[in-house]
């Protein structure tokens, strides 16, 4: 299972990439494998103010729809519009071209609540048993 070392994670299987003024958010390899055939992604509007843990996007596979939660509070600065035409990017490249949205964080100490790659890996192992 690919868990890139430079990212942070949530218990609900989002990944977070910290860049200068914003954080990029997507779903993890584990999540995309669980979902399998992604056929639709609903993205948050740019400018929307979101709270940590709030459901802000939806990924739909053939069988069901899944909420995607904001890993930190802030304002949505960008959404990956490529997913509108090609939602399969989430399956093909979940840590790259399949990113979902970017947030300009408003509360810096919320990052402490996110999981390190090793903690996230441990969570997956516990789930598997």
């Amino acid at each position, binding site marked *: 299972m690919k868990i890139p070392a430079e990212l942070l994670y949530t218990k609900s299987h989002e990944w977070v990439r910290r860049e200068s003024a914003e954080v990029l958010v997507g779903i993890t390899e584990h999540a995309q494998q669980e979902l*399998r*055939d992604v056929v639709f992604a609903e993205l948050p509007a740019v400018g929307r103010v979101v709270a940590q843990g709030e459901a802000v996007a939806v990924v*739909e596979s*053939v069988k069901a729809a899944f909420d995607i939660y904001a890993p930190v509070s802030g304002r949505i600065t960008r959404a990956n519009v490529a997913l509108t035409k090609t939602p399969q990017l989430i399956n093909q490249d979940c840590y790259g071209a399949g990113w979902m949205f970017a947030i300009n964080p408003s509360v810096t100490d919320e990052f402490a609540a996110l999981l390190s790659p090793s903690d996230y890996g441990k969570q997956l192992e516990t789930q598997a048993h």
Partner: protein
Amino acid sequence: MTETPTRRTALHLRHRALNARMTEFHGWDMPLYYSSILEEHKAVREALGLFDISHMGQVLVSGRDAVATLDALMTSDFTQVGLNRACYTLMLNEQGGIVDDLIVYRIGESEFLVIVNCGNRESDVAWLCAHSTGQTEITDISQGRSILAVQGPRASRILESFLDAKVAGLARFGIAPIRTMGPEACIARTGYTGSDGFELFVPDNHAQKLWDAILSESRSSGGLPIGLGARDTLRVEAGLRLYGTDMNDATTPYEVGLGWTVAIHKTDFIGKAALVRQQAQGLTRKFVGFELAQGPVPRQGCELSVDGRRVGVVTSGTYSLMLQKPLGMGYIEPTLAVSGTKLSLTVRNQRYEATVVKLPFWQPAGAKSKLSVNAKQLGAEKTHE
């Protein structure tokens, strides 16, 4: 803590060995998918798919008055069903509501194999027993028997290579015995996918060998094992209704667009009076298919509206691999049930434009002409939207 025991088919270990993602379905532990729903869907449309559908119930209706019993209990005219032929039919209650949809195979002059939905097995058998007439025997023969569905354009060639039955020559909705596998082993050219294909009714002790043989024979030409996930996406794409989802005991055949199964001129059958009444009064809702150019998957319960006014509800939906767009089916006001009508589909408080289209959404190339001939023979055109 005790867990409710789930039933397992004779192929359970095969599913485990293939690493299937399992799911509970009406009390059965069944494969949801093996690899991916879309990959499996594609295999059925382009090559071959192998399904374990042993959860479906198998009931034998036999005896001197078997035809009379079926005629009294189901919507079709069984005097018109020839030997070794199958018939898609409905069983109704007195109100005209659908008790179950079934495939009935005439495997003897007065012997019929009835395939019932697994969720209705016990209640169907009870219903059949309670309403059978004259000298008719109703026997649930599901125990110890398996059903394998082999569906897709390569199905006939693969099966021909190791079954002595003349598979390729079997007509659509025909059935023939497989003599090498016991007295009641049969192969029928039927299915629930919209693609050409077969269903094999065999004793459990033949199921694993057959499963292994079909898989190994077909792997090199794109054959895959198929779970219930793709079974659902395939049947929606083919516009096939699912009992319990698209229809139930409060839905009539006319409402769900299955009026073509009703031989309304038969002397009498359970539900006839209610259907005659409904024909006179007209419908208050009609089952339709609709498509979206793009957007979310229509799910059961989603609202359909026109100009902000609720006009119907979704019962089934999927993302169509063949048409590359979301599809849905559901009930709307009859005046709107016309191809081209624009509807609004509400998903998570957002509205998406949907267009009413003719069912089936998809059918194999070349199937159109054959189907319309069949429909005319059945006098189906009038009631089948």
